[in-house]
Each structure stands twice: as C-alpha cells, then as structure tokens.
C-alpha cells in the first residue's frame, strides 16, 4: 500500500534519511524501530508531506504522492499522529474529533449553517471517542486531559479522518504501563480496518503488534522482515537491540 523508494533527506551537514526503500503491505502492522536520532520521525514527516524529500519516490495506493501537499495526502487516506502531542488544546475532546470528521466530510466553505446542527458529525466523533476510550471525557477541554488520554486523542484525531493507512509516531511515548496496555489494545482493535506504520521504542508493544519490522540506523534501513528474523539479526542486535531481548 505504501512504497518508499530511495527516499532521502539531508539537512546542513547531516544526512537524516539515506536512500530508504521499504514497503508497507495493505492490512499489516509494520513497525519502524531504531535508536534515537535514527531518522524515524524525519521519515514519517517525509511520508506525511510536511517535510519535502531531497530524493526518492513515495507511492501510496498506487499513486505517486512524492510532491503532494500534506492535506492532499490526508484526503487520499494517509493520516498521521505526532510524537509530541499536537492536538487542539482549547477545544473539547468532542470538538477535536468532530473537527477531524468535518475535515474529512465535504467542504468547510459553509458560512451560515451552525455546525452544532450537524448531528452526524458528532455521532461519528462520539464513536471514535469510544474506540479510543475517551467516551467519558467528551466535554473535557483537551488541555485538561491526562498525558495518556492526550496521546489517545492524538491517535483518535488521525483515526477520525478514516484513513487507509495511519502513521503512528511513538504513540506510547511517556506512558505508564496501564496506559500503554490500553494503547496497544487500541492499535490491535483498529488493525482490521487500517494499515499501520508504527514508530516505537517500546519493544514489548512492537513484538506484540508487528507483522513485520524495519530497522533504521543513522538514516539507513539495515534490516526489514518478520519479527523473529529481526530479533535474531546480528546487525540489528549490535546496533540497537543489544542483548536485552531474549531470543
């Protein structure tokens, strides 16, 4: 579903992503792992379109989206959640999700009819809230949510656009064990409807969820394949996993 061919990005003096070629198959959960600074978030930004690539080609659902603007990619079904929570802090949870639903459903060049009258928008927002476990917090202002709840909303915003593929950038970042379990369960729930490219440091989550894993080190893809193969891979162990993970 998502194909990257030799995707590269260079900043002054630093090569962030270096000829990355990988494929995410439709329906899978594909994890992208690697040490800090490996270029994972840069790659995600290139895929979502917020960072233009210096070289390479990105194809989504058969289409070349290398030069498409971020909002165009979203319209095609490619959504993203952020590593550093980026929600609409002063909106309520319900309004956050309703906005994402609104963005997806038709034009917002509508100046007269009150949004409040569009029941279907809010019904759909409520169902997304249910999926991410925030049904009890619909009228809470986003800024007042606990960290884990904000991360859930972060993912929810991406899901509300009904994407075909969602890029999750460290959804478990900063979460305690209980919250992490909830997030893992959430990703498990949605995987039947959405293809997932998951960037994560939490190896427990990665090995539980991933169909395939790709490893990024210093901007280069050093391995890609089934979890057991990755776990056993010498190069990957040396570069990243260390001897912590039991074979």
């Amino acid at each position, binding site marked *: 579903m998502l194909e990257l061919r030799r995707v590269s990005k260079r900043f002054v003096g630093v090569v962030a992503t270096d000829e990355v070629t990988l494929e995410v198959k439709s329906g899978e959960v594909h994890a992208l792992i690697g040490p800090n600074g490996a270029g994972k978030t840069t790659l995600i930004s290139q895929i979502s379109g917020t960072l233009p690539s210096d070289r390479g080609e990105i194809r989504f659902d058969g289409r070349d989206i290398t030069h498409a603007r*971020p909002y165009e990619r979203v319209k095609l079904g490619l959504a993203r959640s952020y590593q550093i929570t980026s929600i609409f802090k002063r909106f309520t949870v319900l309004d956050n999700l309703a906005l994402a639903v609104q963005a997806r459903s038709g034009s917002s060049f509508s100046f007269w009819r*009150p949004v409040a009258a569009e029941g279907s928008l809010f019904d759909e927002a409520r169902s997304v809230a249910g999926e991410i476990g925030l049904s009890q917090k619909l009228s809470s202002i986003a800024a007042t949510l606990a960290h884990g709840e904000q991360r859930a909303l972060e993912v929810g*915003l991406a899901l509300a656009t009904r994407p075909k593929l969602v890029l999750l950038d460290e959804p478990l970042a900063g979460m305690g064990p209980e919250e992490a379990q909830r997030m893992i369960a959430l990703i498990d729930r949605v995987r039947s409807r959405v293809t997932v490219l998951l960037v994560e440091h939490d190896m427990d989550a990665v090995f539980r969820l991933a169909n395939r894993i790709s490893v990024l080190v210093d901007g280069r893809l050093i391995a890609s394949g089934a979890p057991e193969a990755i776990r056993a891979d010498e190069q990957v162990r040396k570069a990243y996993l260390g001897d912590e993970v039991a074979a």
Partner: protein
Amino acid sequence: MKRSIAVFIVLLGFPLVMSAIDNLFYVSFASRVIIYAIAATSLNLVLGYGGMISFGHAAFVGAGAYSASICIAEGVTSAWLGWPAAIAASALAAWLIGAVSLRTRGVYFIMITLAFAQMAFYLVNSMKAYGGDEGLTLPQRAELGLGLDLGNEVVFYYVVLFFLAISLYGLHRVMQSRFGRVVVAIRENEARAEAIGLPVHRYQLACFVIAGAVAGLAGALLASHGKYVNPNVLHWVQSGTLMIMVILGGVGRLWGGAIGAFVLLGLEHVISDYPIPWLAAVAPNYPQHANLGVGLVMLAIVLFAPHGVAGLLSRRRGA
C-alpha cells in the same frame, strides 16, 4: 444574544432622543463611531478569531472609501452601484495582498501586510486626478433611493446601524459554522489542521478576503459620511488604530470591535472637546498631545489587561 438585542434597542432609540433635544451633531458622531465599529469588527474576524496579525487592514477600508468616492466624483451617485463596487474593490485588494502575504508566517506576515498597506497609501497619494495628498471632496453623499435621503443625519444613522447589525450577526453565524470552526482551529494549531486534511491556506485567504470586503463597506460608508476622503485613511497608523480598537474591545469576542471603536472614539472626543481643568493647568496644550495618553493607556492594556474591555466585563460577571 439577549444582551445584544438590548444594546440594539438602545441604539435604535438614540437618534430619536437626540432629535428631540435638537442635537444632531451627536447623531452624526454616532454614525462615525458605528462605521468604525464595522471596520474594527471586520479586523476582529481576521485578527481576533483568525489569529492573523494583519497590520494593513486600513488599506481595505481605504480601497472601499476611494472606490465609492471615485464613483460619486464621476457622477455615479447610486449607492446600489457605488457600495458594491467598493466591496468588490476591497475584496480584490484583500485577495491579491492575502495571496502573497499568507505565504509567510509570524513576523514576516505582520511586516508584509504593513508594507503592502503603505504601498497602497503611496499609490493613492500619487493619484493626482483624485486629489492626491489633499484628498477628494465629494459633492454629496451616495443616493439610496427608496425614499431614504442619506443627507438626513438620522436616516444615515439608521442605515449604518443596519449594516452594523448584519455585520455582527453575520460574524456570529460565521463563527458557528463549519468555516468558523476551521478558522479557529487553524489559529489554535495550524500544523495539525493541515494534518487532518484541511487546505489551510485557502481558508485563511477566504477569511482575509471576507474581512477585507466588510472593511471596504465601512470605507464606502465613511466616504459618504464625511463627503471627503484622503490618503490618510490608508496610513498604517490607521491600521494601528483599528488594531487598538480590537484589542481594547476584546480580541475574538463578538462585540470587541464595536466596543473598542466606541471607547476609543469616545475618549478622543471627550479629551479634545471637554477641557479638564487640572490637566490644563499642568500642560496647557494637552489636547495636542492626546496621543501620549492613548499610548500610555494602550501600553497599560497590553501589559496588564490583554483581554480588553470585553474580557474585563465577562470576568466581572463571573463568566
């Protein structure tokens, strides 16, 4: 909503009271305040709700004022032609300026809108055919027909009041609509707005153009009111004055622009027309230095009451 209606009832009754005591000067003054209220409200849309710090809004007021004036000067006295022309001209100006300016962000955007407005000022200043830097005096106000004589102060007052009403109501509806939600969301978190699939630039431009169009209407009304227009209408100090009104009245609050216009113009009038004895004793020329007071008040507001008068009002009511 109820408060708004109450205010409008008072405003409706005002000129009748003034007519009764035979003081039409204040009716004319009130018309001027209302026109500025419309202009400030249009800036509130772009600045308060949209978060776009446009320092060149006076250019759109000026575009409207000059378009309407040129119409009348050339013999096209019907408001039905002149005022839509003014709105179209300022909307076009807003579209052109917005299309270039909105490619930038932050500090750049502010400076660019300022620069473009000053450009408009110089352009108009060099139009010798329409008065250049001396301005253009009009033989008459625009004509509405319908048995309404805009030359009559009371009639003119009701007409501008009508436009204020629809501006405020329009703003109210727009902010409740899909468009309004998007505009506020873009202000709150532009990156995320784009990330959920919204073509941010298009919405910002549309907001900019709408505000420009309403400002143009205010300009047309202003030209008719004073039967005079000059390049100072476009000067960046005027843009600053409009911004002062918006922040004074309350950024992002429905009545913010109107309250700000009322307070600022009211204060200006009081200071220049009513001698304050103790102040006169200390500084005999004080009305000429009124700007010092304005500056100090403004600085105080920015530093200590950033939500303006409307903010203070709603806080006191425990809202």
